[in-house]
C-alpha cells in the first residue's frame, strides 16, 4: 500500500495544514517511503494479541474533587496572541 497525492491532500486537510504543490510532491514520496517501511508489520501474526496503549498498569487516576487555587487570569492572558476585556479574542465564529 502506498500513499497517493490524494491521500496527502486529505490528511493535510484533516491536520489543518496548507501545502504548496512542491510540498505535496515531496510529502507524497516521503510518506510513501515511511508507510511502505511500516508495512513490514503486516507480516506479523497478531491474532488474539491485546493492543498496548500504555505500558503501566494504571487507569483513571482521579484526585479528590476539592477546590484548589488556579492560575491568575492576567498571567494566563500574557501568552494570548490577541485579547480583549479579560478574554482571548478570536474572529467571529457564528454568522
Amino acid at each position: 500500500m502506498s500513499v497517493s497525492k490524494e491521500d496527502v491532500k486529505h490528511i493535510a486537510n484533516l491536520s489543518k495544514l496548507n501545502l504548496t504543490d512542491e510540498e505535496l510532491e515531496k510529502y507524497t514520496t516521503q510518506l510513501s517511503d515511511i508507510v511502505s517501511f511500516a508495512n513490514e508489520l503486516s507480516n506479523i501474526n497478531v491474532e488474539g494479541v491485546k493492543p498496548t496503549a500504555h505500558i503501566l498498569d494504571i487507569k483513571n487516576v482521579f484526585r479528590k474533587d476539592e477546590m484548589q487555587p488556579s492560575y491568575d487570569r492576567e498571567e494566563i492572558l500574557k501568552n494570548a496572541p490577541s485579547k480583549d476585556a479579560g478574554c482571548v479574542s478570536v474572529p467571529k465564529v457564528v454568522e
Partner: protein
Amino acid sequence: MSLYSLTLTEVAKKIKNKEVTIKEVLDDIYSRIEAVEPKVDAYITLTQDLAYKRAEELQQRLDNGEDIGVLGGVPIAIKDNICTNGVKTTCASRMLENFTPIYDATVIKRLEEAGAIVLGKTNMDEFAMGSSTETSYFKKTKNPWDLARVPGGSSGGSAAAVSAQMAYASLGSDTGGSIRQPASYCSVVGLKPTYGLVSRFGLVAFASSLDQIGPFARTVEDATMMLNVLAGHDNMDTTSANLEKQDYTEALVNDVKGKVIGIPTDFITEGIHADVKAAYDKAIETMKNAGAEIKEITLSYAKYSLATYYIVATAEASSNLGRYDGIRYGHRAEDFNDLEELYRKSRTEGFGPEVKRRIMLGTYVLSSGYYDAYYKRAQQVRTLIVENFKKAFEDCDVIMIPTAPNTSFKFGEHSASPLEMYLEDIYTVPVNIAGLPGISVPGGFDSKGLPIGIQFIAKSFDEKNLLQVAYTFEQNTDYHTKEPTIEEGK
C-alpha cells in the same frame, strides 16, 4: 584545572566545603560558555540574571549554615521543551517562539529544591522530533567532537552543553532515543529512566505514552545524583508511579560478579558500523573481565520496534499537537478572513517540515480505513515487544547493546531521506516501546575519533541494577575521561 572541567559531584562538594563561592562557579561556567558557545550553539536562551540572583540567595543560606541541597549551587542546563516559569520555552519552534510558561515543570521544582541553578535553555529538534537537532527553527548545534557534524538529537543542545563543559549536567527528554543517542554521539552519559519514574508535568508533550525526562552528565555517578533528585511520585502527572523513594547512589558499586548480562545476538546484525561493532565486542570483553556472566538472548520482535514506533509516536503527536491552533497561546497568523483560515495559516506558518511530516503520518495511521491496519496493529506488536523483553529478563539482569548503529554524521547527510534518519534510532526505540530504563555510557571512538556509546537496559524500575552495571563498565574503561577538541574534524 579549571572549575568547569570538574564533575557535578566534585563542584558540589567544593561549594559545600566553601572552597569556592557559587558566584565563582557561575562566573567560570558563563565565561566558558562565552568562549565555546559561538562554536557549538548549544543554547537557545541564557538566564544569567536569574542565575546570579539565585546564586546570591543560595550563598547567603549556605553562609548561614543551612543545608542548600545535594545539588547546592550547581549550574545545570534545561532542554527547551521543559517549562520554566518566566523563562521562554520554545520547543525550538516558531510556533512557541514567544511562549513564556507561567509555571515550572515538576522536574524544575525538584532541581531547584535540591539547590541547582538553571543556566539556560538548550537547543533541540523542533518539538523533539528528530535525531540530529537540525530541525530546530533557531540554529544548528554542532558536535563538540567535530564541529562539521551533528550532536545527535533530539536533545542535541543538552548533550553538547555537557560535552563541551558548558554545564555540569542537563535535562533532556527521550521519546525514541532523544537522550541516549545524542549522549552516544557526544561521549557523555545519558539516562532515560523507566516510564513513570520521573514526572512529565511541564514537559511539552510529543508522544505521551513514550516520553520520559532524564539527565545528561559527565559520569554515571553524576547522572545518579540527578536521578535521585528527579525521581518520585507527582500528583500532577497521572502516569507517575507511586513507589517508595530509593537512594540510587547505593548502586554506585564497581562490581558485577554474579550479574548476568544479556547479548541479543539476533538483534545486532546488519547495518552496524564496523567500528561500533568492534567497540561493542570490546565492551562485552570488559564486562566479562569485570566478572559478569555473558549470556546470549533473543529479542526476535525488537527489529519491528522502529515501524511500531513511527506509527505509535506520530499518532500520539498528531493528537498532542492539535492544541496549537493560534488561539490561546503560540503563533497566530496575521492575515485571515475567518476562524478556519486562522487555524490553517497559524499551523502552516508555525510548524517546520519534520513536524508537519509527523503530524500528517500520525493523522494517516489514525484515519478511517487505516486505523486497524496501522495503529491497532502497531499497538499489538507493541505488546509482543513488551513480552519479548519480559521473557529476556528471565534469563539476564541487564541487556547490553550499542546505543546507535553509527557515529555522528555530517550536517545535511540525511536531509533528503527522513526514513534513513529514522533508522539511526533502531537500538534506542525498543526501550521506549517497552517503557524500560536505559543508559548510554561512553564506549569508545571510531577511526575518525568520533564517540561511540554503549547502552544498558534493565527491567522496569530496576534502575539500581542498571546503574551498577553502567558504573562498573565506566570504572573499567577510560573513555569518559577524554575531552572534545571543539574543532572541525579532518
